[in-house]
């Protein structure tokens, strides 16, 4: 009871020892605090100044556009404005990523207004849109003016709101690390410079900004650990000198990664710790997609599966995982006892089935599938542990429901025991829709593999990499612009550097293999995800961007399995997607007509993708499945061959 609780009861009187100080243990000169404050203040002032400069450049840009300045003047001013943005980018993206995405430098694609109970399309605004407009062969002055009108309001509003904000030490270190990832994954790939092609120069501006921000901190980092300070200095030095002499088509992105980006992702958080600066990840109750302690973005622990699967580590994890593996391979989950998850996701084929379509779509690999904020080709499900429900109820798949499945599993003493052991802490839900889904989700969550030959080279663990693979990677991340949708390190649509959102793309996939007069595959894709907010024209024929890891083992390709080999896939893109083979979708999202790749270049890209192979160590299955004492007819269920699957025209599960 708290009836007697009054404020005076918890007033504190601390005058007795008010000025007592504790000794600082094992940390260097406490006076450096003052120097750190100066370092922070320098960045703080610079940021406020850069925001003002950016707003002023936008205003000047708008002015030129309204005075119908000649095209080259506009282009020059465009590049100046973008450079000004790049100098604020790391902190602005850290402080207000959504504002940057929606108002300043988002992808040039329409979106729907979030959280309103209707479909309302918001046309894209910002520097990326302008990059295409101002460098297009036919510039539309009215459209450019309209864009700049909106951009100038937004840049003024941002200046108003953040022009005076007091930064914190941790913002600077964390924003800088994100920017290092952004430079590699988005910057040098040309993601936000589709028209101007100014990617390398802008990456240089961004990296120099980080270098300048760290300059004030470096002496104090050196005081604590000279090696860490040296690594950071070298990383900035190597990175800027590589970018200074870089050209977009020939730039060696792997060298930038190994000499500059890797040391930055590793030592920026290390320096932050050395200086005793707190971290956003100090709060253990909030999980984060990116691990601050991972050395490289190609480290196996760079992304946190727990974040994506929304699971929390606990003492029963191993048992839940083992139970999930049994369930994954057990056809008892399906109504006629003939289908298991493994029927379409065979470990021998990197968890695919080699068929064009399993039911209505091509079965995607499950390896690394946990790294996503939504699941299925149409992104219809947000939760990994609910993904299974779609398969359970689909009439073409398991054609049952959880109450029936639970009833069946309850008839096996082995399963009863395993569920009791794995979920005994929740007696009311020990064998339930939840525990069944959870166990399966944990099994899928655990199917991660990020140790391909390419990863080992990217991390710097080996210096050996076939020249064709290197060449292919640089094309993938450069001229062929694959990496602007298949983002590193998952090489899927999981968008860096936050890794909190998946993209879909509208490619114009044909219904059968042909290179001319193709017919569009009728599968409507994301527009029919069942989520009201997806019911908008630009989601029609949109599909999740899958990973290209393990593609060597996962043919055929695309949501309908239309392409038999990787050469056909690369050729499709080289022709500009559907547009190049006779499919005209106004809202196709490939921003190019043709990539201009020759046969040798396409071959190199295939070589690179094949170097992303790492699945064989996950190829295992349980020796035997639990028996059902009173259902002897169920006990040879896994010997029953899977039914011949009839093609269906309707689209539901995967």
């Amino acid at each position: 009871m708290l009836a007697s609780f009054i404020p005076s009861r918890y007033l504190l009187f601390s005058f007795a020892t008010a000025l007592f100080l504790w000794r600082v243990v094992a940390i260097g000169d406490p006076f450096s605090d003052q120097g750190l404050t100066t370092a922070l203040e320098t960045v703080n002032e610079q940021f406020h100044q850069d925001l003002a400069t950016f707003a002023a450049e936008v205003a000047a840009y708008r002015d030129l556009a309204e005075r119908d300045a000649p095209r080259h003047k506009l282009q020059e001013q465009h590049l100046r404005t973008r450079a000004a943005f790049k100098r604020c980018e790391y902190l602005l993206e850290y402080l207000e990523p959504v504002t940057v995405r929606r108002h300043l430098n988002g992808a040039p694609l329409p979106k729907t207004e979030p959280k309103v109970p209707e479909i309302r399309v918001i046309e894209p605004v910002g520097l990326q849109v302008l990059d295409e407009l101002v460098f297009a062969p036919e510039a539309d002055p009215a459209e450019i003016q309209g864009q700049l009108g909106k951009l100038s309001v937004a840049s003024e509003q941002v200046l108003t709101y953040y022009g005076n904000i007091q930064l914190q030490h941790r913002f600077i270190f964390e924003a800088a690390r994100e920017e290092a990832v952004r430079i590699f994954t988005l910057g040098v790939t040309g993601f936000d410079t589709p028209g101007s092609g100014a990617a390398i120069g802008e990456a240089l501006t961004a990296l120099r900004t980080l270098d300048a921000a760290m300059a004030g901190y470096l002496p104090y980092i050196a005081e604590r650990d000279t090696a860490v300070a040296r690594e950071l200095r070298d990383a900035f030095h190597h990175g800027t000198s590589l970018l200074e002499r870089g050209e977009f088509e020939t730039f060696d992105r792997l060298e930038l990664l190994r000499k500059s980006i890797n040391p930055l992702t590793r030592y920026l958080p290390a320096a932050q710790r050395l200086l005793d600066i707190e971290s956003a990840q100090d709060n253990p109750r909030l999980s984060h997609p990116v691990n601050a302690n991972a050395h490289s973005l190609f480290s196996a622990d760079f992304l946190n599966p727990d974040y994506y699967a929304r699971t929390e580590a606990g003492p029963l994890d191993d048992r839940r995982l083992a139970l999930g593996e049994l369930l994954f391979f057990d056809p008892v989950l399906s109504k006629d006892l003939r289908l298991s998850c493994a029927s379409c996701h065979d470990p021998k084929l990197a968890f695919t089935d080699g068929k064009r379509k399993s039911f209505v779509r091509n079965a995607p690999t499950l390896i690394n599938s946990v790294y996503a904020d939504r699941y299925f080709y149409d992104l219809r499900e947000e939760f990994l542990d609910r993904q299974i429900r779609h398969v359970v109820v689909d009439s073409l798949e398991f054609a049952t429901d959880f109450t029936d499945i639970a009833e069946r599993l309850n008839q096996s003493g082995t399963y009863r025991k395993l569920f009791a052991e794995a979920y005994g802490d929740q007696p009311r839900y020990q064998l339930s829709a939840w525990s069944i889904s959870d166990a399966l989700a944990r099994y899928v969550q655990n199917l991660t593999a990020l140790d391909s030959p390419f990863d080992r080279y990217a991390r710097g663990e080996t210096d050996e990499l076939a020249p064709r693979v290197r060449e292919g990677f640089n094309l993938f991340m450069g001229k062929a612009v694959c990496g602007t949708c298949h983002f590193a390190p998952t090489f899927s649509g999981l968008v860096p550097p936050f890794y909190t959102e998946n993209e879909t793309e509208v490619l114009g996939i044909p219904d059968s293999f042909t290179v001319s007069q193709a017919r569009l595959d009728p599968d409507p894709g994301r527009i029919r995800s069942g989520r009201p907010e997806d019911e908008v024209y630009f989601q029609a024929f949109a599909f999740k961007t899958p990973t290209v890891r393990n593609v060597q083992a996962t043919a055929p390709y695309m949501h309908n399995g239309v392409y038999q080999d990787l050469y056909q896939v690369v050729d499709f893109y080289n022709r500009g997607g559907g547009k190049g083979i006779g499919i005209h979708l106004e809202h196709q999202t490939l921003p190019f007509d043709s990539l201009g790749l020759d046969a040798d270049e396409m071959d190199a890209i295939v070589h690179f993708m094949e170097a992303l192979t790492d699945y064989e160590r996950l190829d295992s299955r349980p020796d035997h499945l639990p028996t059902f004492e009173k259902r002897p007819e169920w006990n040879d269920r896994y010997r029953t061959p899977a039914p011949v699957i009839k093609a269906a025209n309707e689209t539901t599960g995967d």
Partner: protein
Amino acid sequence: MRTLYLLLLSMAVSGLPAQLVFPAEIDAPEDYAPVEEVMPPSPLRLQTLFIGGIDLVQTTATYGNDANQTNAKEWHDFIGFTPDTTTESLGWISVNHESIYRDDRIGDGGGMTVFRVERDEESGDLNILDQNLEDGRAGKFFNVDFVNTVGETGMNCGGISSIVDGRIWTAEEWFRDDNASINYGNFSNYNQYDPAPVSYPSAVGFDENSVGSGINQGVRDLRPFPVDAPEFPFIDGDTIAKYENFNWMVEIDPRQAKAVRKQYNWGRQGFEGGVVSADNKYIYLGVDATPAFFLRFEADTPGDFTQGTLSVYKHDAEEKWVELNNNSARNVLNLDSLSIEAGATMFNRNEWVAIDPTTGIVYWTETGRDYPAGAWRDEAEAGAVVAPHHAARAAAQGENITALSDEYWDYYGRVMQYDPETEEISVKIEGGPYFNESPSQTNYPDKHLSNPDGLNVMTIDEQQFLVICEDLNGETFGRMPAENGSGGSGVRNRMCELYLLPITDGTATVDDLIRITVTPVGAEITGAIPTPDGKSLLVNSQHPSSENPFPYNHSLTFAIHGFDELTTTSLLPPSGVDEAVGLEIYPNPTLQTVFLNRRQDVALYNQTGQRLRVFRNVTQIDVSDLPSGAYYLRSDEGQLVKLIKH
């Protein structure tokens, strides 16, 4: 050491924004005994009542399937409470499922789950009772049968829980314009962009075989709907398009778990919430749209809501309530055009409505939408008028800005009030704050109210409070303080808050809000409604979060018990605080918050001297998720205080 202290102090005094770092480790005190403060456990505690998607509901015979049981639907939103007039139990709880998803046993669309509870005299918990219903169902949880009564519902979000007798209505949000939008079968809005339409699967008309198949995610029965509603002769016997049978207020009987009627006489709208007045005569309705109109139904006979007049609010008229003719099917199906013709007052997304039974004042959340002008300009031209507070806000935003300008923004929303005595509307509390200039650190608010959504009235210690749930509709322009940045720190869930606001005369500010932190971390809270005995607040967590172990990572209905043990003073910050230099703390167990004597940077250490968290520029710290134990708080000047959390 003393020198250092003085140096740092002088820096602080000279105004240099010294931002000091806190050592990652400090010596555990040996001979030194810091001032110790004890925080008792919160009198508030959680009890899980109902887990969506997992708990089993008893179903009726539906779509040719026998009565049976199956996993409940998910996406909990509104909660209704129907008090038991006998002493057999406390009453019935009704939970909305805000979804539109096929289900062979419960029925397609959205839905509701009901159950009956009693108060356990010993533990104070709520026990869920076994029930036998008239239709033969027996069990604890029951889905409300819509399919075999009034037709499917969709996106059941808000609703009405009558303060008079606990009658329950469910609201169907997300206004439907065609059958495709309840079925996800074809895409009428695609063709206009497609110069050469290709063939793609079209909507599947009703097909006995399609029920039970995976085809179509939404409502599968799209046959024209014959209205069977003798109470409403103007529409009874008509056949309407299936989608037109959505977006009504629907009364249910929570005791028998079945729908009673779609309230055709209140018009078809994207309803979100409503209230019944204490005299059982008026219904006030909230519509989630831009423009939203504020509607009132006046019963001819109190308690009989099938006969009466429907009116819309017009603030600039002599008679504020303008009657709408609801005696034709055409009119109730196109209510918006009637409101526009009447020149009604336009709001920006009205959500939940609540009523204070002690005063009769009606409150509602106007959740806001970033740039509303484009969504209400046509209506303004056709005669509807912008609410006065929007006109005033727009004028304040710039010389030439009106509420019809594209630049006019309404990022944060607000809570409105309507006084039936004066028939005037006014802003109860404005969301935000917004700053024309970037706030200096010392002025940055501890609380920020963005996009209020759920709303109710609760009595604590004989004082009336509004219970406000946020539902952020954006992350731009300060809605997410940098500390909680969604991208920067990768926090998935927007930090939606549950607030209490003491109801006093006049306008309140965000400083008056009291944050309730006992709810699961990062969970989006909705549906808050007190039990009639004042002991518990029932809440839904609609959007689960990863940071909470089962069952808190699911769609969940839970009870927060212990409100009867609160005093109003226990909800307030400390008084008589010494704001001079140094660190003093004032732990408040009810709020699980440690108040500081002044704004400053502090670090939290564990008992062995390891730093756990650093809090910058704060006047209070939320410690609700800390395990019990001993901790130290250290000021940036090195001063320590010990906190024992029980």
